[in-house]
């Protein structure tokens, strides 16, 4: 149990208030970042390239709210040594499991602390390209580009034309899918041991957090309220974070699948115990000042908390940091 001074309990980001967290945040972040070092020495040297990797490719169709799964096999000719991740989550995973000299460039969001937990390190390490700078990506002459579902077909086509190998990772989001992707990335880049170690670290940390959670008569109902009144549902990383800490994501509970917009009257009828808003959005003041919401439990008991956006957008092993932080907020003074 540790005290951690963050701005999450404050309407104004400049104020710092102590939050009791289940695990030390810096220690947890280090554990989730330095897996590569922990597995060093255990690496198999007898791997023969090319390797064939069979995997389940998962995509999420947000129009029908269904997952499509398909078994695929890919052949990797040689151990990739010039890797480019086209998404923040992949960059964070690679940073943990892959020797850093093999990562040749990062996209701009990986260098932005609003989006990425390793932004400072990425900025120092560089180089950084903008998401649409396909020419720059080609110019780095990578031997593997990791793409995700939002990378875009134009980007894929450009890579095809330049004969640059790429790998489409598909859906990221829940803790389960993140663990699956970590293992897959490990196989693709020949760092299976590090990947397995990272998954073990995730499981260990998750178990540590869960063991520290208090036993309640009924779970806390938490709602994430984003700008424009958007609420995440069942298929969102927020839902996964809530699952880890034994809380109920009110959006998911009320039947929201992906994201939907709700009015304040609906919000009152859902009556969450706690509302989470992104830091700097001004939403806390707006919600606190709303007359309709003044009757909701969260407003009545001043349970609207600001969390930096990076904790809410996370799609990597650092989802554990979000779970650790949310546990501190949800189970305030109950550890």
């Amino acid at each position, binding site marked *: 149990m540790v005290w951690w001074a963050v701005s999450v309990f404050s309407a104004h980001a400049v104020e710092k208030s102590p939050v009791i967290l289940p695990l030390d945040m810096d220690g947890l972040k280090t554990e989730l970042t330095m897996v590569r070092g922990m597995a060093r020495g255990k690496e198999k040297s007898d791997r023969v390239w090319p390797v064939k990797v069979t995997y389940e490719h998962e995509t999420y169709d947000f129009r029908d709210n269904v997952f499509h799964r398909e078994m695929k096999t890919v052949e990797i000719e040689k151990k990739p040594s010039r890797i480019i991740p086209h998404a923040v989550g992949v960059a964070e995973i690679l940073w943990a499991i892959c020797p850093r000299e093999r990562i040749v460039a990062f996209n701009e969001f990986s260098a932005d602390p*609003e989006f990425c937990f390793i932004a400072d390190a990425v900025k120092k390490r560089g180089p950084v390209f903008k998401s649409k700078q396909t020419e720059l990506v080609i110019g780095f002459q990578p031997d593997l580009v990791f793409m995700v579902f939002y990378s875009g077909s134009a980007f894929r086509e450009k890579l095809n034309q330049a004969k640059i190998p790429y790998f489409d990772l598909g859906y990221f989001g829940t803790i389960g899918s993140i663990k699956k992707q970590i293992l897959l990335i490990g196989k693709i880049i020949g760092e299976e041991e590090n990947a397995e170690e990272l998954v073990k670290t995730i499981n260990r940390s998750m178990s540590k957090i869960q063991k520290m959670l208090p036993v309640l008569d009924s779970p806390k109902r938490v709602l994430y309220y*984003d*700008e*424009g*009144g*958007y609420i995440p549902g069942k298929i969102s990383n927020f839902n996964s974070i809530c699952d880890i800490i034994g809380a109920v994501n009110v959006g998911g509970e009320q039947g929201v699948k992906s994201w*939907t*917009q709700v*009015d*304040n*009257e*609906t919000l*009152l*009828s859902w009556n969450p115990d706690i509302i989470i808003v*992104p830091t*700097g*959005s*001004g*939403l806390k003041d*707006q919600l606190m000042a*709303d*007359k*309709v919401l*003044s*009757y909701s439990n969260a407003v009545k008991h001043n349970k609207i908390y600001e969390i930096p*956006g990076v904790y809410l*957008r996370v799609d990597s092993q650092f989802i554990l940091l979000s779970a650790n932080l949310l546990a501190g907020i949800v189970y305030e003074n109950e550890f």
Partner: protein
Amino acid sequence: MKMNFKFFITKESILTGILLILLVLGAFLTVAYGSWPIEKSHLFKIILMKLKLFTGVVNEVEATIIWDGRMPRLIVGGLVGISLATAGCIMQGIFKNPMASPGVIGVSSGAALGAVLAIYMGLAARSLIALPICAILASLMTLVLVYTIATSRGHTSIPILLLAGIALNLVVGAMTSFVITLGTREFDVGRVIITWLMGDLNNRSWEHVYIVLSTTLLAIGGTLFFVKDLNILMIDEETAANLGVNIRFTRNALLFFSSLLTGGAIAVSGVIGFVGLIAPHIVRGLIGTDNRKLIPIAGLLGAVFIIYADLLVRLIVRVDLKIGILTSLMGGPFFLYLLIKHRKQFEYM
């Protein structure tokens, strides 16, 4: 003694009566239904209590939901409809063109750019009135710009005004797109901008009512002051000048009021299309071109249109359909139907 009621039975009075009935029904449905169930008997008690006509006990939560949640949404919707329809009447009258609407001289695009900038720069998150003020100011600035371009040696050319409006629409539209592109980098901001551009009456408050009420009252009051001159202007400028109408002043004033109406409406509701084009058309087809009757009745139709569109979005469709999309989906085909059916009739202006 035998009363002669024929005086009251005119096309205008029948249309006004029908629209008023629809308005009252729409208002009742808007206030009565929502995600929080409220008994109808409570509804009337709450409204009467808020109007100081009842002193009994009401449920506080229900009273707040109705008075601070549903009522502002209803009134904002109604005022937006009135504003957009009136602005359409003015534009169609000044330009003597049934295709004219507040959008043609770039006023709507200007308001949209102002609002999008307010969201992107974070002003909208800090203050409730920042977005409306930015939208109104930007719409007026666009009007001044387009008017300056079209005015030479004291004479404002209508064709140049229209062409300058088209060009400014493109430029301002491109600037809005650029801000959207910047906004999408911050996913949340991009989503708010796009939602707003599709028209949104969600979570309107009394502050929004005061903003749009002030622009609507000021602009409609001013428009009604010039309404006779607008009728004369629609004949031709020479006749208007012979009849003592100060053409330049009248036109400037009416354009200002039209921009104020459009800016005020867009400021509180986002971009809601087709109302300014369709409401004047339908009413003109039924009662004629006299703006003294056309403006109030078209305004009423605009209000009814928006209130029912919002009801449809909120209570029936219940998916993430935005009111601006719905008005365009309903208004566009209807407008095409009218055009095809009354091709000849629309050549009257």
